[in-house]
């Protein structure tokens, strides 16, 4: 959905835009409706002042690339951190399976770096059998691949000339690089070129979502 904000944008407009977006990533608005409204009111103030709906509990640092990552809902940029917290920083969005969001409001416990975390990366229906897609989890670029009803995750960067593997094609259990055809076995990341295997990560399907297990990166 295209993100269009205009003069007179309301809390309901924000909800209409953000809700479906968060849903596709396995998140929903907090169950505390008043809290949600209060946060979104603040976002409207930020929108008016700063020209975009930056997360009201983060500060713009002046680097456009960094600041882009705090435009709400900023879930895609912090998939691993939010999966570990089970919410976005402020608790405006909570994981779909959290029943009572009240406890998650406000508290920001930094998870230990290195903690293994199951990160939802997309809906199964968005990943057709025999296809791959790129997702960025923390600082890692991953190719998530579906073969029949199985899913796999591996580094998205070809070890030959660094092509994005997701732009290649899936052939059985092989992901074939789009540039020069190197083949990677999606089950273990091996290729037939010496010392050129790529890293793999456990992946699974749960409740219609594809999840990848990664170690949580350093706090950003």
């Amino acid at each position: 959905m295209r993100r269009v904000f205009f003069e007179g944008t309301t809390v309901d407009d924000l909800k209409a835009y953000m809700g479906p977006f968060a849903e596709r990533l396995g998140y929903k608005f907090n169950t505390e409706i008043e809290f949600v409204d209060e946060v979104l009111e603040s976002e409207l103030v930020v929108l008016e002042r700063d020209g975009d709906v930056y997360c009201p509990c983060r500060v713009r640092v002046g680097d456009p690339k960094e600041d882009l990552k705090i435009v709400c809902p900023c879930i895609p940029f912090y998939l691993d951190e939010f999966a570990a917290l089970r919410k976005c920083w402020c608790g405006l969005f909570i994981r779909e399976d959290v029943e009572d969001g009240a406890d998650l409001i406000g508290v920001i416990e930094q998870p230990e770096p290195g903690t293994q975390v199951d990160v939802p990366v997309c809906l199964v229906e968005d990943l057709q059998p025999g296809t791959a897609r790129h997702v960025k989890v923390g600082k890692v670029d991953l190719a998530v691949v579906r073969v029949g009803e199985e899913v796999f995750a591996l580094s998205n960067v070809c070890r030959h000339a660094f092509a994005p593997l997701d732009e290649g094609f899936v052939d059985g259990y092989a992901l074939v690089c789009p540039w020069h055809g190197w083949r990677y076995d999606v089950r273990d990341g091996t290729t037939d070129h010496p010392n050129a295997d790529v890293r793999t990560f456990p992946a699974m399907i749960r409740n219609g979502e594809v999840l990848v297990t990664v170690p949580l990166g350093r706090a950003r």
Partner: protein
Amino acid sequence: MKIHLYGLSTCPYCRMTKRYLDDHGITYDMTEVDLLDGDEKQAAIDEVKRLSNGTSFPVLVADDEVIVGFNKTKMADILGI
């Protein structure tokens, strides 16, 4: 105990934290980082990054304890409320 609160003027959790401190009669200094400019703002951001490993708010510093986010349990614990 020396208490300093780094917050943002637009942040609901900063407001909750202030309210909580005020309600309990705790005195504190406060920096509203988004209302600063230039070097002053940068210095405050750097300090928050150093303290909290990120740029989330509020950041409450009580002597050498740091609380990120609105965390009643931790505040009560550290401030002896």
